[in-house]
């Protein structure tokens, strides 16, 4: 496929690795923020062909992984209601809640449907006026414009049987949270390319400035990632800390203004709890006043749900780059994709799933 395959060219990758090796004079810890990048790194063994000095630390950029247990439990409670059709992206179905997962609710007769696009959930609501359709709206800034459009369409069509369980999270506050940990070892970041496709680069400049870290906007194919590492190393070696763009075919400095406008009309900032990490202020979006009537948490009385994470799961340490998945004692033993203890083992972008699938050690 054009704009995909050519960025996997092995000779070109070797050229970039040589260029990195030529620049590097000492060890550097670089965090790739996005789980999609983690998967590409492990799948193509990019960490193994890079010079020993470069250590890639896997970051918290997997929305499925960071959606808190309480929210999963709320989705499960909604899905179990007879009048509800719960629509979700496929990744969420196997994520363990405190008791079960959505997949189990489905096998017990709950109406859980996997949608490709949020608009499909709106279409379902139109088709089933006698049912309540709830869309489980998770994601980072990349997914927010699509999810926002679901609310806009539901309003346009005057749908009274559509609502959203919103668990949106944002990347810049997560980067800040990683950097604020006293023993943080991360010296540079590969920022999540598609988040920046929507939001642009502006939010990252104050972070690079304040924490004196280079932040390089990076794509997802091997050449994109190696180009990102190279640009990050060049800055680190020369003592600079700027926001740079290693993914210009998909990211303009201003992002996508039309998408930003729609998101701002539908959502407003809110504090969010991140699974394994805890509460991060202003780290998410919820439906703003104009669309609050589509908020599933207002429409349905779900009571008070609190949940405890299983102690054996070290997801918090993995998400913050303190532990490699294979260093978790449960990895591949009590925790496998068939019997996951944590979301990181089931999400298509979870770091534990990547190690299990491609490396198994």
């Amino acid at each position, binding site marked *: 496929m054009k704009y995909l395959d050519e960025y996997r060219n092995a000779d070109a990758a070797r*050229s970039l690795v040589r260029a990195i*090796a030529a*620049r590097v004079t000492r060890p550097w810890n670089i965090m790739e923020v996005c789980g*999609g990048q983690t998967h590409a790194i492990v799948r193509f063994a990019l*960490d193994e062909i890079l010079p020993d000095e470069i250590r890639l630390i896997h970051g918290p950029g997997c*929305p499925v992984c960071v959606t808190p247990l309480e929210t999963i439990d709320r989705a499960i409670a909604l899905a179990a209601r007879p009048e509800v059709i719960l629509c979700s992206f496929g990744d969420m179905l196997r994520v363990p809640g405190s008791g079960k997962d959505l997949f189990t609710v489905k096998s017990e007769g709950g109406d859980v449907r996997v949608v*490709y696009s949020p608009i499909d959930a709106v279409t379902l609501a139109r088709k089933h006026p006698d049912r309540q359709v709830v869309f489980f709206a998770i994601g980072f800034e990349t997914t927010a414009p699509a999810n926002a459009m679901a609310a806009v369409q539901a309003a346009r069509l005057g749908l009274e049987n559509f609502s959203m369980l919103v668990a949106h999270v944002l990347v810049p506050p997560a980067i800040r949270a990683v950097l604020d940990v006293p023993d943080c070892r991360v010296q540079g970041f590969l920022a999540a390319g598609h988040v920046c496709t929507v939001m642009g680069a502006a939010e990252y400049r104050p972070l690079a400035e304040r924490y004196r870290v280079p932040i390089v906007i990076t794509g*997802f194919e091997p050449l994109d990632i190696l180009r990102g590492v190279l640009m990050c190393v060049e800055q680190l070696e020369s003592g600079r800390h700027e926001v740079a763009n290693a993914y210009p075919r998909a990211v303009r400095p201003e992002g996508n203004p039309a998408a930003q406008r729609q998101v701002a009309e539908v959502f407003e900032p809110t504090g969010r709890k991140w699974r394994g990490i805890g509460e991060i202020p202003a780290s998410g979006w919820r439906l703003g006043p104009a669309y609050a009537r589509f908020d599933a948490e207002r429409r349905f009385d779900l009571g008070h749900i609190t949940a405890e994470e299983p102690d054996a799961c070290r997801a918090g340490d993995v998400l913050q780059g303190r532990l490699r998945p294979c260093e978790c004692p449960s990895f591949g033993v009590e925790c496998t994709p068939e019997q996951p203890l944590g979301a990181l083992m089931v999400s298509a972008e979870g770091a534990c799933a990547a190690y299990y699938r491609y490396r198994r*050690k």
Partner: protein
Amino acid sequence: MCLGIPGKIVETFQRDQLPMAKVEFGGIIKDICLAYTPEAQPGQYVLVHVGFAINQIDEAEAEEVFRYIEEIEAMGAPGGPEASEAAERGGGGETG
């Protein structure tokens, strides 16, 4: 989750007041919403995420990394033989 796939616009149309397009991904055609890339035309490539085009692919910028690689290759292996050797070594990273 933030997966974005480049696809080529085959034709555009309207549905439920939304600008839409048939977009081709390596032979597979899907209906994609163009609300956020209203200028995109048939023949152009868009980056698609959960059924929405989130941006047009900048075709000139798409060559940037290849131009860069050509440049460094034309200058000879940067850092000389030692660096190439480090690159060839492979498997050297800390893999746990």
